[in-house]
């Protein structure tokens, strides 16, 4: 299976570990990713809350390149995924938006390039049955809280691959990898997203709520699939402690890092050292790392 890969800005910088582990997992599972040449930023929140025309035109510019490649697009970042899908949705449902985007980019576009999220590709194109066949190093007994955040399941017109209020694909993927995903109530609560830049105290309050609940529900780690969720819970964990008192540290891993280990990739191949909260103790307990290193 071939996909036009849209990494997005975060995956080239603060979430390079997400990119590395995504590429590693896809390679292990035989998914062929071709990076869209000279893709540009999706515009993210600053575009959709600042210039509505730009919020459609920026994604369309990259989607036109993918159209030339003749492959469906796969994004890993939840925000890029949402913005690319929203641009398609607006173009299909609003003829004026379409004309506007065509005037700006100078090319006709009908909104038909399929945009998929990494989780959608893994859970639905490949499927857990297929993934199970490749598991060399099951994460036996690892209790993980799957955290989807907002844009992987909402709004349902845009993110259409799982239930908007109770998504389960991450749990299914981690179960296939041998882990024991826990049940917890906050998996689609918001982390505060880019308020991290402007109103960090709000992000700390939300982060504390999430970390506390994950711990109380018995999680040893949290699995995420969004660069902003990851950095708001991982990098800000020290600030959260400062504001709300001691809570036991909990590592925040990209789901691709966990899957990668289960697929027999080494800790370097999934960039475990890039996490602010050390994940080694939690994983070493299950001898996953040793087995992964042996397998590498």
């Amino acid at each position, binding site marked *: 299976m071939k996909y036009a890969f849209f990494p997005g800005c975060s995956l080239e910088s603060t979430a390079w570990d997400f990119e590395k582990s995504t590429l590693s997992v896809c390679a292990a599972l035989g998914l062929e990713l071709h990076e869209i040449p*000279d893709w540009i*930023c999706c515009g993210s929140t600053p*575009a959709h809350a600042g210039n509505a025309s*730009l919020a459609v035109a920026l994604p369309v510019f990259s989607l036109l390149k993918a159209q030339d490649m003749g492959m469906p697009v796969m994004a890993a970042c939840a925000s890029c995924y949402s913005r690319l899908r929203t641009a398609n949705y607006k173009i299909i449902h609003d003829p004026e938006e379409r004309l506007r985007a065509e005037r700006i980019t100078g090319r006709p576009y009908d909104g038909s390039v399929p945009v998929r999220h990494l989780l959608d590709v893994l859970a639905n194109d490949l499927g857990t049955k297929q993934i199970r066949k490749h598991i060399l190093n099951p994460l036996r007994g690892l209790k993980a809280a799957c955290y989807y955040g907002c844009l992987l399941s909402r*709004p349902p017109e845009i993110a259409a691959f799982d239930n908007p209020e109770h998504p389960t694909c991450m749990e299914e993927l981690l179960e296939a990898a041998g882990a024991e995903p826990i049940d917890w109530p906050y998996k689609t609560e918001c982390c505060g997203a880019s308020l991290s830049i*402007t109103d*960090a105290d709000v992000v700390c309050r939300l982060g504390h709520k999430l970390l506390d609940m994950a711990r109380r529900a018995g999680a040893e780690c949290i699995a995420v699939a969004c660069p902003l969720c990851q950095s708001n819970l991982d990098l800000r964990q020290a600030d959260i402690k400062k504001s709300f008192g001691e809570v036991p540290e909990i590592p925040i891993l990209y789901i691709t890092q966990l899957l990668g280990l289960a697929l027999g990739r080494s800790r370097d191949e999934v960039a475990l050292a890039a996490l602010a909260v050390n994940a080694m103790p939690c994983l070493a307990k299950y001898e996953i790392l040793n087995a992964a290193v042996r397998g590498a």
Partner: protein
Amino acid sequence: MTETLEWKDIAFLREVERRSGTPVSACFQCHKCSTGCPIGAEMEFLSSQIMRLIHLGEEEKVLKSHSIWLCASCEACTTRCPMGIDIAGVMDILRIMAVERKLTDPRTRGETFHRSFLSSVRRHGRVFELGMLTAYKLRCADFLTDLDKAPKLWAKGKLSLLPKRSADVAEVKEIFRKAEEEEKNR
């Protein structure tokens, strides 16, 4: 103290509905959006109250409020509204209108962040985080917040000193120019 508001004018409601493409007038104040809003605790006006203020034509109250800038665009309200109102989309339009009318709340850093982010995209085709954050901090005259994060990010290889450009920067500049033109005709 509670304040009694009277209906002012329909022009504001009409403009918000036209530009957001969503039926704000359909809101019947069930408050489901506000109940599920993660930022409700910090907001002076909850999302359902914003909808009501729009009905009443309270343009200044709405556009000057800090609440519209605290919305994290998590889409819980849009997903759950029983009347199908794209409430998060309305928040976007309100932010755009507040900037157009120069009414943004002085406590708001959102506009400054958005401006810094987009000028980075305009220049490089992608976000250059270090440059974007430096520009943002200069504009806010705040260098201390999160300064402790820089060495951590650096140690983890998460802070690039140089931008990673798209080769199509000239075309990106043209997209920005045309998008700004299009916005004037909305």
